[in-house]
């Protein structure tokens, strides 16, 4: 069976959930081989084996973190030439998509972004125009490069050997032109990442102020959820921009999405419409967000949300 390369997303120690999703998807179409950049492969090996990685190609150099995107694309192009894989899977994160873009240019290959499923013949399913249309697409030139939307696939374990193979490759100077000089981590406590979270709680204009986002955070923490915000809330400076869900922000498709005090302008819906279950709290019964709701409460969020948090607390104790 032909190999499928899976570019690992990790923090130097732990592999991210999206990589286990990619491995699950890759197994159905070939033999998954993880590409690991930088350090930490030994520690993560057990986890990669648990999700069926046959091999782990390790390129341990600080260059992959010290320079923007280009080194990873160069490494993958090298591995395509050497291993002739059937496809390359990356996570459809900002960086993953950019790696895919550069790799496509380098190898003259087609790239599909934001894929939510893969059928036989590597036909990718994509959801476009804010979820209004589902498209089946495929790559017809080169090695298919497929960026898979986080949370679109449920990770399922299956044992693999995860045999480690060191890749002898040095990044060229051409790929080392945009140098990362610092990393600024915003305070967000222990919450899961927005695009990876199974549950997302988002707040909008109805909150009325930045301080009231504490309520959204409380609800999120009671559910182990990530916090999101509508554009109205991020534009008003109530919550940091990187948490914006919507057309000009993040696209999320969690198992459960709670929209609190969000009217549901199309710009917001475009970023959350493909969530599996949607719950809404809004005082305006005419708010368009109710059209998407599996369950909606028409009411004052300052009364409904504290009661919901209390009720979740009671149930988790019981």
């Amino acid at each position, binding site marked *: 069976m032909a190999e499928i390369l899976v570019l690992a997303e990790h923090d130097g120690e732990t592999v991210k959930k999206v990589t286990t999703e990619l491995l699950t998807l890759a197994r159905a179409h070939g033999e998954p081989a993880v590409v690991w950049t930088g350090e930490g492969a030994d520690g993560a090996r057990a986890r990669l084996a648990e999700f069926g990685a046959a091999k782990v190609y390790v390129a341990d150099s600080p260059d992959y973190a010290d320079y*923007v*995107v*280009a080194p990873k*694309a160069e490494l993958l192009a090298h591995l395509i030439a050497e291993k002739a894989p059937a496809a390359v899977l990356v996570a459809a*994160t*900002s960086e993953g*998509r*950019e790696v895919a*873009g*550069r790799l*496509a*240019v380098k190898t*003259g*290959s*087609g*790239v599909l*972004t*934001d894929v939510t499923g893969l059928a036989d013949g590597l036909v990718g399913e994509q959801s476009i*125009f804010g*979820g209004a*249309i*589902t*498209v*089946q*697409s*495929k*790559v017809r030139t080169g090695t298919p490069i497929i960026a898979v939307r986080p949370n679109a696939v449920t990770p399922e374990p299956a044992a693999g050997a995860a045999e480690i193979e060191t890749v002898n490759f040095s990044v060229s100077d051409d790929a080392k*032109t945009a*140098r990362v*000089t*610092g*990393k*600024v*981590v915003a305070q*967000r406590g222990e919450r899961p*990442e927005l695009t990876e979270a199974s549950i997302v709680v988002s707040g909008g204009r109805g909150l009325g102020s930045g301080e009231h986002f504490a309520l959204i955070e409380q609800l999120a923490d009671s*559910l182990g959820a990530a916090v999101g915000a509508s554009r109205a809330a991020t534009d008003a400076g109530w919550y940091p*921009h*990187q948490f914006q869900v919507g*057309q000009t922000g993040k696209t999320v498709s969690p198992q459960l999405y709670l929209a609190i005090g969000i009217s549901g302008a199309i710009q917001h819906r*475009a970023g959350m419409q493909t969530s599996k*279950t949607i*719950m809404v*709290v809004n005082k305006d019964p005419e708010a368009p967000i*109710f*059209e998407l*709701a*599996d*369950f*909606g*409460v*028409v*009411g004052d969020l300052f*009364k*409904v949300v*504290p*009661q*919901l948090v209390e009720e*979740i607390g009671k*149930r988790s104790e019981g």
Partner: protein
Amino acid sequence: MNIVVLVKQVPDTWSERKLRADDSTLDRDAADAVINELDDYAIEEGLRLQEAHGGEVTIVSMGPEKAADAIRKALSMGADRAVHVTDEALRGSDGLVTSDVLAKVLSRTGFDLVILGSESTDARMGTLAAMLAERLGVPQMSFASKVETDGSKITINRQADYGYDTVEATLPAVVSVVEKINEPRYPSFKGIMAAKKKPVETLSLADLGMEAGQAGLSASATEVVSFANRPPRAAGTIVTDEGDGGVKAAEFLAARKFI
């Protein structure tokens, strides 16, 4: 400083967006056409850098004839001149082909900085800045929420899930921006009037030394096999809070095994 800002005309998110039944390309007649939202921020950043460092701001857009409206808007905000790449043979080009065409235009115009929105609201691939940096062999300064340059060195804040990275490079470079970067200006009446007299160069594929077979649907490395409208979501349960809205919400979450 020679600043080039890339602009794309897209179907308005507020109107119904469709694909054509015959070849699965965007139905440009079905929806109102507007300038891609993030491009306003790219234009604004270009104008601010010009105000600080001098030079010219050139708008480059690839699209059908009516994309001239988007170009006109960019010029009315204050850009100096524009290049419009338009050719029937471009229709249906994917990201790879688009980046090839735009790279050829950029080699022709020359640039110290290329600025673009980090993604378009229609295709939403978010790959163009990376593809252009790769093709042009210049630093990729993408997802910028802040740009600083002294005319030879450039530093950006590159937005990330965890916050941001600071990234440094030497010009020329490709910069893509996120909406946090600035607050775009509105065209003034004077600007709108002035835009009518600004030079717009129109280029065909042949002008770029390309043949029809090198662009468009047939040259693209990807193809749409089929598409379907997403079935509407089943109507949910809506309750009005009568003092027990939070409890009912919790019951729903429990029934669905979320708590």
